[in-house]
Structure formats: structure tokens, C-alpha cells
């Protein structure tokens, strides 16, 4: 018998749970301004999430998926991309979407039930939030194939959850991406849960990163609560892909501190003790500790940031709440490039019904 293949999975982390540096920081992380920017982006995301949950609780927003505790993954990915790259997110990547120029108002509109929330004014080529789990992965391969065929130095990034890695779509996309050496970086936002299904019941594989091995591409694991590590490892994969080095899969280990969505009650399936223990690994607190101890962050700066984030979120909420719904016939506006004649009668009917019955059917 002889061994024909073997693999190992590297894990990267720089800031431990106490905010202490392990090993040597990557070059970008020696710039206080960069780290402060990452910190601010995480705090903004946390402020937004908390507000969105409270809006839902008070009947002013639909079901919403908070990213509480997972901010470092989204923000690290968002920071690793260039504006001209293309992001294909899941439904829990708001932190990264904001960095790419998606507005808080847009995401509130989306979760508030308005298609205009996916008509991003900023990153025009980014894909909208993807609800059918993992289905954005094949699309990311399509985007990356387009970038490669045109010979552009651009990269697609696709983020999905630990649950998504059990879907065939994700494997089909990874397999094709590796075959074609596509400029595509897959990121698993492994928050340990897929609604009530814990990571251990999702797959018998020891790591999710190793799913890349079967597809023929590098698989790496990173501390997903360390924004420096996420930014670094994703950034290296993105730049490697940009140089023609092909795709990679990065598993970011984090923890979903919130319910799955506002429609979920996680106390039905997991212990509070588990959650409180995980709060000790909070990505936001750990970077704040590091920045404070390094002398780059003060109590005053923190207070100013909290006030600023609250004001920005409040402004977005106001804009969202002040946006009137589209007229009912809008559901026909973009069904096709041009509405087929066969559908005109239905569009006229919805308008006529509305005229007869008023705005609130």
C-alpha cells in the first residue's frame, strides 16, 4: 500500500480572545488607521443589527438576520476586496456590504420588503442578498468566469454559512472554480449553527476548509473573530486569485451570538451557558482591547464612535421609514426587459384593483 494523497489545513489567528497578539502581525495591521477603520466598521454593523432587531420587534421591519458576534468575518472580507471586485453574499454579510458601499437604508428596505433594497447605488455589480442557501456559489463561479474570460484583474468573493457547505451547489461551484482556475474566493462564515443544527451535525468532516481539498483548491482556516486574521488570509487569497492563482476556500470560525433570525428562538436548542462563554471571544471587544492597549483608542474616541454610529443608523432608519411603497403595478416593471403583451392585462388589473380598493389591500 502506498499513500497517494494527503492534506493538512492551516489555521491563522493573530489576536487572541484577550486581544493579545500571537506571533507577528501582518504589515497592514501595523497601521493604526487601518485597524481603527476595521474596528469602526464592526461597531457600525453591531449598531445596525441591534437597531434592525428592535425595528422588527416593534413591527417596523420584516424578518431580519443579525450578524451579532460575526462582524469580523463580514468586515474582514469587505476590507480585503477592491471596489472593482464582485461580492456575492449570503444574508448575514451586512458588515462587508456596507464597506462596499451598500447603504444601511438599502438593507433596511430589503428586509422591510422592498425590492429597491437590492438596487444598490454603490456596488452596481455586487449580487443581492441570497436567501436560498448556497445558491450564490454557482453564480459566483459564473461571475468569476466572466472576469477571467475578459482578462480582467478582478476577483469574485462568495460568502456562505457552515450549513451551506453541505449543499451540492457549493461543491459544484468549488469543483468548477478549481478546474477553470477562476479568480474566486469562497468564504465559509462558520458560526457553528445552521438554525438549530450545530456544526457537528452538519458534516463528519473535521474542518469545513478541507472541503476544498476534494475540489482541488487550497482550503484554509482562520479565526473568524479576529478581523486582522480574516482580512489577512482572505486578502492573500484574493490577491493570489487576482494574479491568476485560482480559487481558495477559507473557513472563518466564529459564533452566532444572536438567534438565527428574528423569527427564531435559539433558547429552544442551545444553552445560555454556551452563548455566554462565546461572548468572551467577542471580535469587537478583542480589537478594542488591542487598540486601547496599543494607545490607538481612547474612551473619548469610543464615546464619539458610539454616538456617530447611532446617528448614522438613525438617519438610515428615518430614510427607510419615510420611503413610500412602490405602486402595486411595480411588480410588473422589471419582470422582463419589456413587459410581454400577454401580461399587460394583469398589470392593468392590479392597477385597477388598487384604484378601486385604495393603497392598503
Amino acid at each position, binding site marked *: 500500500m502506498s499513500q497517494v494523497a494527503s492534506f493538512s489545513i492551516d489555521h491563522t489567528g493573530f489576536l487572541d480572545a484577550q486581544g493579545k497578539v500571537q506571533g507577528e502581525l501582518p504589515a497592514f495591521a501595523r497601521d493604526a488607521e487601518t485597524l481603527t477603520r476595521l474596528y469602526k466598521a464592526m461597531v457600525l454593523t453591531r449598531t445596525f443589527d441591534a437597531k434592525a432587531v428592535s425595528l422588527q420587534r416593534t413591527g417596523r421591519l420584516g424578518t431580519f438576520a443579525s450578524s451579532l458576534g460575526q462582524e469580523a468575518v463580514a468586515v474582514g472580507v469587505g476590507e480585503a476586496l477592491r471596489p472593482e471586485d464582485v461580492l*456575492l453574499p449570503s444574508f448575514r454579510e451586512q458588515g462587508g456590504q456596507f464597506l462596499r458601499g451598500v447603504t444601511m437604508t438599502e438593507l433596511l428596505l430589503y428586509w422591510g420588503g422592498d*425590492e*429597491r433594497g*437590492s*438596487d*444598490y447605488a454603490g456596488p*452596481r*455589480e455586487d*449580487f*443581492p442578498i441570497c436567501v*436560498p442557501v448556497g*445558491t450564490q*456559489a*454557482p*453564480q*459566483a*463561479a*459564473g*461571475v*468569476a*468566469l*466572466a*472576469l477571467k*474570460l475578459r482578462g480582467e484583474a478582478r476577483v*469574485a468573493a462568495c460568502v456562505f454559512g457552515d450549513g451551506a457547505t453541505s449543499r*451540492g*451547489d457549493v461543491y*459544484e*461551484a468549488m*469543483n*468548477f472554480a478549481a*478546474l477553470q482556475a477562476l479568480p474566486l474566493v469562497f468564504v465559509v462564515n462558520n458560526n457553528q449553527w445552521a438554525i438549530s443544527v450545530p456544526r457537528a451535525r452538519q458534516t463528519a468532516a473535521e474542518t469545513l476548509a478541507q472541503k476544498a481539498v476534494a475540489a482541488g483548491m487550497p482550503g484554509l482556516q482562520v479565526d473568524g473573530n479576529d478581523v486582522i486574521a480574516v482580512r489577512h488570509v482572505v486578502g492573500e487569497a484574493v490577491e493570489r486569485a487576482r494574479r491568476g492563482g485560482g480559487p481558495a476556500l477559507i473557513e472563518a470560525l466564529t459564533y452566532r451570538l444572536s438567534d438565527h433570525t428574528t423569527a427564531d428562538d435559539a433558547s429552544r436548542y442551545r444553552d445560555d451557558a454556551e452563548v455566554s462563554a462565546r461572548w468572551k471571544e467577542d471580535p469587537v471587544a478583542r480589537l478594542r482591547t488591542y487598540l486601547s492597549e496599543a494607545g490607538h483608542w481612547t474612551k473619548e474616541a469610543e464615546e464619539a464612535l458610539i454616538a456617530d454610529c447611532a446617528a448614522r443608523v438613525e438617519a438610515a432608519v428615518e430614510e427607510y421609514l419615510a420611503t413610500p411603497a412602490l405602486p402595486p403595478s411595480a*411588480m410588473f*416593471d*422589471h*419582470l*422582463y*426587459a419589456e413587459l*410581454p*403583451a*400577454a*401580461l399587460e392585462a394583469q398589470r392593468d388589473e392590479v392597477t385597477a384593483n388598487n384604484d378601486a380598493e385604495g393603497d392598503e389591500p
Partner: protein
Amino acid sequence: MSELALVEAVRLALARAMSDDETVLLLGEDVGIDGGVFRATDGLLARFGEARVIDTPLSESLFVGLAVGLGAQGFRPVIEYQFMGFMYPAIDQVLNHAGRLRNRTRGRLSCPMVIRAPYGGGIHAPEHHSESMEALFAHIPGLRVVIPSSPAKAYGLLLAAIRDPDPVVFLEPKRVYRATKEDVADDGAALPLDQCFTLRDGRDVTLVSWGAMLQETLAAAETLAAEGKEAEVIDVATLKPLDMETILASVERTGRCVIVQEAPLSGGVGAEIAAGLADRGLVSLLAPVGRVAGYDTVMPLPRLEAHYMPTEQRILRKLRETLAYT
């Protein structure tokens, strides 16, 4: 102008679209060096190269997802499914994404694509190779579903489908891939989508069908003519969106209608046409709308296949019944 079989007309349209427009790409299993299992893409790899004729791994769910990404980036992918029976994993991408990307982004992103697949029975193919499941796709908002019935229709409709800015499911009746030849001019002229074609004028009854079934339908009209009754034959061609106007106008003249489909009877496109007639054509109707269809059974394996397929005889029986109704 040359005499071409339907599958050759498909190839001609693909080649034409690819030489006219650099953004047109072909993807699918065995579409490259093998030219596709029905040879629809024969020679296209040699002519257009690996970057535009892409042999994919066996990943049916992937293909439409790829096309969504490519389409959103400005390409016009044409995907070949080897057989309709293997398309179903793609329904997720078709329904959840391809058909709604434009709408859900308010027009910011769209994904033009053509999803080609040979479909239908009558060639004694193995299990899963003979179904006619067009109604599954015709139910999906934001799509077009197109079925050509002849070589010239295949050429013109496929060009139209590729140039269309929205996703098109283009189902090819493989029983007639090589059954007949027709003069097809490679003039780059597309046929209109969203329109039925009247293949034969008649004043006594309207016969409505699509795809391979038009062979039997036209033969039945011919036999009927010898008996002194003239059937108007309509080729639906675009099943979604459905051009009821042409069908209604014909039934207004004839007062009678028989719909012929190879697909199972219930919930098929024929039922939608019959409902459209009940809705808006009732006053013209002199007889109940007749339907000749496959049965609501699992498509039989080849030994019983001929008993499943609507035949000229079955169509004639229904026609005579419809004509005799007073």
C-alpha cells in the same frame, strides 16, 4: 439556402449567434470535442475555441447558476442540457434566480441566457430520456419557454432567444431532430418570440400544438381535408408568455378547438390554453375544447411508449367528435 434538419438548424443558429456576438458562449456536458450527444454543437469548438465552447463537468445545478453570473456580467451564455430529464436540479437556479434577478434588483442586474434541452418521447430512449415537462418551466415567472417545431423555426427562434435580454428555456423536440429537412437561409433573421404561428388556414376547427406533435397534428389536418373539413393549425412556439390572441382569433372564426400535447394531460400548457378559451372565447365556442395529450402516467419505457404518445388517429378521433358536436 440549404436543406437542413432541425438539429442542423440549431447548430447553424448557434454558429451565427457566436460569430455575430462575442459575448455568446456555449456551456454543457460534451459540447466541445464531442459536439454534444446529438451533435448540435459539432464543429463549434474548432471554430470558436475553448474560451467560448466550454465543456463542463457533470454539474446540472451549476450550469444555470454559472449562466446567472455570466449573464449578470454581460455575457450571453447558451447552456445545453443533455436531456430534459436531467435539468431538474437546475429548477432551483431557474426559479429562484434566473427568472427573478432582474425584478429583485429593480433592473440593476439581469441574466440573459438560453437553456437548451432536447425533450420528448418517441425515439425508444432509455428511462428518464423521454418526458415532456415544459409546463414546469411555463409556470415560472420571468422566463420565456420556446419550442421550435421545424428546422426554420429552430433557426429563427433560437436566434431570437439568444438575442433576448431575459432567460429563455429552449426545448428541442428530439424526435424530429432529423425527421424532416427544410430550406433554411443563414440570413441571421430572428423569428418573433411571444407569438404563435399559423401553419395552415382552415375555417372548421382550430388545432393547437407545439414541438414534435405538430407532425401528427398536421397529418391529421391533411386527412381531415380529404374528408372535406379544414383545420386551422397553430404552432404555439412560445409557451410562455402565451399568445392567446392568435388562438382566440382563430377560434372566433372556427368555433371549435382541439389542443394536442405530448405532455401529461393535467396541469399542462394545453390546460392553460383551454382555460384562456373558457375565459375569453366562450361565446365563440360551438363545442367543448378538446384535448389530446399524454396520459397522467409515468412515461412508459419504450415497449409501451407508442401507446402513450398522441397519434394521428387519436387526434382524428377527437377532431371528429369536436366537429360532430352540436
